[in-house]
């Protein structure tokens, strides 16, 4: 028998709690594969968020810290400035990064902290049960906007990559998706680049990844294509994929 594929060493072989059709499992695996390939597991320190990915501290096979909602980039700053040889990444969702942690992510970018940020955008609060996120689309239903988000009542979804691209301190920003196979491959390449930049001391890198949340979107759990269709037809219109910043050095 020949072993063709195995779980990356940077991911522990324990069951994950994520719902069927959720994108976090894919994104965890891609991050772990990149850590293996760049051989940085033994010096990686990951920052787990508050939200669905709170248990990322259990799944990644490297040193991990879990702290307050939205403060990941601040924690990562303290870690990186104290241990410059460590490879520090902050793994965050859209409520965490684009709402309560807006100041922390913007100012980490302004300081060009030499860290890697994995930003998972699924346009909803998952862990708390499907409330409206800052990234929730106009018309999208959530438990705090049951008739769908309206601009009049709640404003418009925030485009983090576009906004952060205006900041001089940012080295690399790309928005990708994991709802298709090519998207998964592109996401992995982007994550790899975001880590390589840190290894090369190039400054702040972030990958924004569009991801599925069938449970809280109310799409069918037995038919995951409903959720991938939502990413394809709705999210990608508001959050276009692409490289938003790729500076050589900052």
């Amino acid at each position, binding site marked *: 028998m020949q072993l063709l594929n195995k779980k990356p060493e940077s991911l522990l072989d324990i069951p994950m709690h994520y719902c069927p059709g959720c994108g976090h499992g894919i994104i965890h695996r891609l991050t772990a594969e990149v850590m293996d390939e760049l051989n940085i597991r033994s010096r990686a320190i990951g920052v787990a968020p508050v939200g669905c990915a709170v248990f990322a501290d259990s799944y990644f096979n*490297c040193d991990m810290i879990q*702290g307050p909602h939205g403060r990941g980039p*601040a*924690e990562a*700053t*303290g870690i990186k*400035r104290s*241990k410059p040889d460590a490879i520090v990444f902050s793994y965050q969702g859209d409520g965490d990064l684009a709402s309560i942690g807006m100041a922390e992510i913007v100012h980490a970018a302004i300081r060009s902290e030499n860290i890697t940020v994995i930003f998972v955008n699924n346009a909803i609060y998952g862990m708390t049960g499907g409330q409206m996120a800052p990234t929730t689309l106009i018309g999208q239903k959530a438990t705090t906007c049951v008739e769908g988000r309206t601009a009049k009542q709640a404003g418009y979804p925030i485009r983090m990559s576009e906004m952060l691209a205006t900041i001089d301190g940012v080295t690399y920003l790309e928005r990708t998706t994991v709802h298709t196979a090519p998207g998964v491959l592109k996401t992995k390449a982007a994550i790899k680049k975001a880590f390589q930049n840190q290894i090369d001391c190039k400054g702040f890198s972030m990958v924004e990844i569009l991801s599925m949340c069938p449970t809280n979107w109310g799409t069918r759990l037995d038919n995951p294509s409903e959720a991938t269709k939502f990413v394809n037809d709705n999210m990608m219109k508001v959050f276009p994929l692409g490289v938003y910043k790729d500076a050589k050095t900052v």
Partner: protein
Amino acid sequence: MAEKTLMKGNEALAEGAVRAGCRFFAGYPITPQNEVPEYMSWRLPQVGGAFVQAESEVSAINMIYGAAATGVRCMTSSSSPGMSLKQEGMSYCAGADLPIFVANVMRGGPGLGNIAGAQGDYWQATRGGGHGDYRTFVMAPNSVSEMANLPAKCYEAAFKYRIPSMILADGILGQMMEPVEFTAPEVDPKKLTEPSWALGLNHGREKRIVKSYDLREGYLEKIVLERIKRYKQIEQTEVLYEEKMMDDAEIAIVAYGTSARISVAGMRLAREKGLKVGLLRPITLWPFPKARIVELSKRVKKFLVVEMSMGQMVEDVLLSLNGRAEVHLLAKPGAAVATADELYKTIENIVKKGAKEYAAAK
């Protein structure tokens, strides 16, 4: 350094922290503590440390959360309104058993209050401040020399018990200049052994996790109960206080920080008039010198609490005494400061005119 240097309280505090091994500082400007981050911004790079001016107090305390998780001696400082913002992070540090060092150079409150020295954050400092069941090791300097030398004690306790530690000073102590002697032994962080829980370069060892949560039923309770054992040990072994003229005292003043300095002046006036007054100055506010107060109450039957707040520390004195002696209060809220004369008159009123005690007056 054996010789004395003339220094401002806030600068002595910063230099004291550096000498105690601090190598990471994050802070945000707020009066009257600005000299601390200003000093750290040039001083830390000299010793191979790092300084970050954070975008907010919230971010600063979370930078400390991250830095402390790597085992480094780190610090943030602020003043009252900023300390409120830091309470989220304080709670997480307590929950993750991280040995952080925080300084609060208190000002008038509540709200924006004013920028003069005050002691209105006693409850916030000693009762937790943030959410959940936890304690902070709190020390109260009363001179620029203590501003310089207590940070070492804070780090010592913080690392020994894995608990957040705090200097609770006020704007007067932060801004005044006095001769300082650095007596605490200087710490070279490179010579400290890396804590067994610190995140870092793992060289093939098992992964480590720093976190404050455990969702499994019954587990959080066990974690908190283990922490409470450490709190009990701190209460038994780490209490620090100073006494003046207590041997023959018939009335004991209890005061900390700037209030204790004023109390010494008021006490001298009273002694000149033949009133037998002594002073108990808690240096640790938590743990509070409860046992000493109980011991004193065997012969001292009148206690006077002097504080630059509405009557906060007096509750600890009342709890300690539990009815064993009369308790009086000279409270100066709103960044007001008692004068020595006012203090003398208060003492005279208690001793000679039988002023109503605080709890009864309530």
